[in-house]
């Protein structure tokens, strides 16, 4: 799910920088997941947009392309208000699930890097 090439590029291949950067992902993901969960009915588009927007560049950074592309789609729907409610809620759930998996993967990567 992840591709750390951008993380390494950004950190100039300094492993300590990369590790400390990755360690900051799980709390951010948890915050966004909580926000999405609280708005899982898909009604408060402003709050959903805020959560998506905050996570977006960091999804790009960690190379989570599938979730990143889904976030672009959802963010655009929030912006334009062009939403099919049932489909939107399903996509939102998929996005949240993707983030939860990403958090697990990053946690494992952190453990590997610390070995």
């Amino acid at each position: 799910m992840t591709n750390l090439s951008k993380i390494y590029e950004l950190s100039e291949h300094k492993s300590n920088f990369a590790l400390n950067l990755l360690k900051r992902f799980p709390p951010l993901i948890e915050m966004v997941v909580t926000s999405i969960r609280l708005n899982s009915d898909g009604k408060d588009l402003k709050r959903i947009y805020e959560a998506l927007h905050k996570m977006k560049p960091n999804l790009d950074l960690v190379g989570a392309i599938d979730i990143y592309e889904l976030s672009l789609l959802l963010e655009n729907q929030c912006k334009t208000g062009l939403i099919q409610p049932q489909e939107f809620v399903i996509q939102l759930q998929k996005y949240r699930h993707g983030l939860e998996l990403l958090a697990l993967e990053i946690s494992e990567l952190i453990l590997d890097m610390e070995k």
Partner: protein
Amino acid sequence: MEESKKSDNLTLKKDTFISDNHSYSTIIEKESKPYTIMIVDDIEINLFILSELIDSINNKFTIIKCSSGKEATEKFIDTRPDILFLDIYMPSMNGFETAKVIRDFENKHELASTPIIALTADSFSDNDELNFENLFNDFMKKPIYLKNLSDSLNRYLF
């Protein structure tokens, strides 16, 4: 938020170094005052990235971290940073509102305009660009990389 004060009597000089097959024109040492750089973002990971990158450019800079627009306006008045990197999309007081307070303060006290670089996850819309011109000197799209940051510091600080 944390403030890391660095030493005085900083000497800086323009230099170029090669890193990861990229040539970055950056400042390493030059006779100058110790620069103070304010970074504002409500997401901790973004503050971490910026502060680490700034530190890698010159570890003697003073970095002032703020996690809200309100905190930034208060600290701006106290510290008068040499440049400010300001996130646009923040709750409560966004980047536009924050920059407006700072520009009003500068105008009221007839102070020189501080370079303000907007940080954004998006490109600017046409409407945003109208406000942008009066408030910001430039913008950078996230995620921020060393080259963009280095170019920005070279352009506005040195």
